[in-house]
């Protein structure tokens, strides 16, 4: 019975043939191998290509070998369209899938929420800078300047309570003035607060990146589905390929819905729990941190959980003569 093999790394045709067929094979067997693997380029065989190993007891072509040849040709055509895909396909499934799990959208939506928080922090910092500019240009007297800056620092203090400093680069328990490196004297002398503009840019950049969290999460979820289906289909197993389409599509659709619903209610639940159990103030920003941590954790878990539910239901779908049939017993 013929077997198929997926080439793992770029190798030359003849050494691949010798490795798969063993040392001593007849001329007839060698020709048989060449006929079955006509789709492979003479010279180098690239990663991801389907190699057909003929039955050593027979030199005639069987139906099964013809079926494998058809699929091997299809794989070759697809790999030619995207040369890098073959390399990415081989050996990286497990690695990619461990990163790209179905809960990514749950985490993604939480990072989007955090982006808003960072955006607010960046805005307050810009206000502080504008205040310094007004003082320097003489539009503001010193007393009013100190009063207004104090108010902005209080606002910043509230915005950066506890875990809310994450992503701002403003670590430690020192005073904000010290952490930010703000000195009125040095500003008036040099016309800029050392490193301040850079810090604002960094926070704004972080906010921008995290703001795309939901879309990145969704793209990752769709990406992992594509990988799963591709993995099943590239090996030339028709039944598994068809099933993977239903199973993985079910997993994706349910996973995204689960992460969206779980993230939403997880955030609400965590907010309440923080207020109630930890006694976090209802006035400050602490509840936002709780909501984001709760939302991302529950969104992630719910995405995976409900994704499994969708995959379970997808596995019950059968295709009979082009019609989709739901088979509860899985027969």
């Amino acid at each position, binding site marked *: 019975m013929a077997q198929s093999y997926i080439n793992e790394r770029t190798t030359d045709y003849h050494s691949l043939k010798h490795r798969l067929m063993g040392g001593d094979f007849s001329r007839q067997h060698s020709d048989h191998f060449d006929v079955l693997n006509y789709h492979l380029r003479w010279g180098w065989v690239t990663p991801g290509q389907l190699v057909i190993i003929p039955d050593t007891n027979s030199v005639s072509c069987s139906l099964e070998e013809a079926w494998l040849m058809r699929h091997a040709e299809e794989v070759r055509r697809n790999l030619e369209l995207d040369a890098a895909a073959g390399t990415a396909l081989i050996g990286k499934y497990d690695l990619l899938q461990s990163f790209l799990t179905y809960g990514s959208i749950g985490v993604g939506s939480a990072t989007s929420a955090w982006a808003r928080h960072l955006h607010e922090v960046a805005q307050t910092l810009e206000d502080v800078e504008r205040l310094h500019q007004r003082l320097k240009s003489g539009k503001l007297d010193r007393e009013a300047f100190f009063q207004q800056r104090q108010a902005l620092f209080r606002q910043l203090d509230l915005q950066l309570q506890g875990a809310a400093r994450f992503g701002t680069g403003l670590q430690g328990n020192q005073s904000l003035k010290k952490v930010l490196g703000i000195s009125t004297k040095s500003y008036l002398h040099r016309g800029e607060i050392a490193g301040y503009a850079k810090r604002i840019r960094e926070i704004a950049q972080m906010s921008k990146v995290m703001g795309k969290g939901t879309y990145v999460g969704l793209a990752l979820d769709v990406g992992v589905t594509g990988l799963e289906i591709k993995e099943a289909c590239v090996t030339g197993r028709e039944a598994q390929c068809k*099933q993977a389409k239903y199973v993985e599509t079910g997993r994706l659709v349910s996973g995204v819905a689960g992460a969206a*619903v*779980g993230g939403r*209610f997880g955030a609400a639940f965590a907010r309440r729990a923080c207020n109630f159990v930890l006694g976090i103030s*209802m006035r400050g920003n602490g509840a936002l941190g709780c909501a984001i941590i709760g939302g991302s954790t529950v969104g992630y878990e719910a995405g995976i959980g*409900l994704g499994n539910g969708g995959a379970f239901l997808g596995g019950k779908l059968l295709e009979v003569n082009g019609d989709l049939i739901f088979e509860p017993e899985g027969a």
Partner: protein
Amino acid sequence: MTFFLAFTIAQVTSSFVLLGLMLFVEYTKLEEVESYFSQNEKVLSNKRFWRRNQWIDRQYRMMLMFDFLQDSKRHVKAGVVTEAELASVPLALRRWVVWPYYFGFVWLIALVVWSVWRRGCDIPIP
């Protein structure tokens, strides 16, 4: 059809129903319920923070309304909302805000039950 399969169908279907319900409430009832807190400092600052009117903004604004209406006493005690403001919200509107969250919490518990059941009985996922 096994009970586990029926549970799975109900769980998956209800997630879409819940998602639809939450989006409906956030896009049709949010402004109405917020109008009863138009002078409230916390609501105003929350609206400023979540001002972009995207789905995530509405989600977090609605969450505050749920907090106010579901845990009124603690919020009144903390001084972030007044009893008069809370009393002005009609009962039907209050239910539109609060009940989807209750369903959501039940949904989360059911998902935990489903996961424990699946692992406990070692039900294979393809």
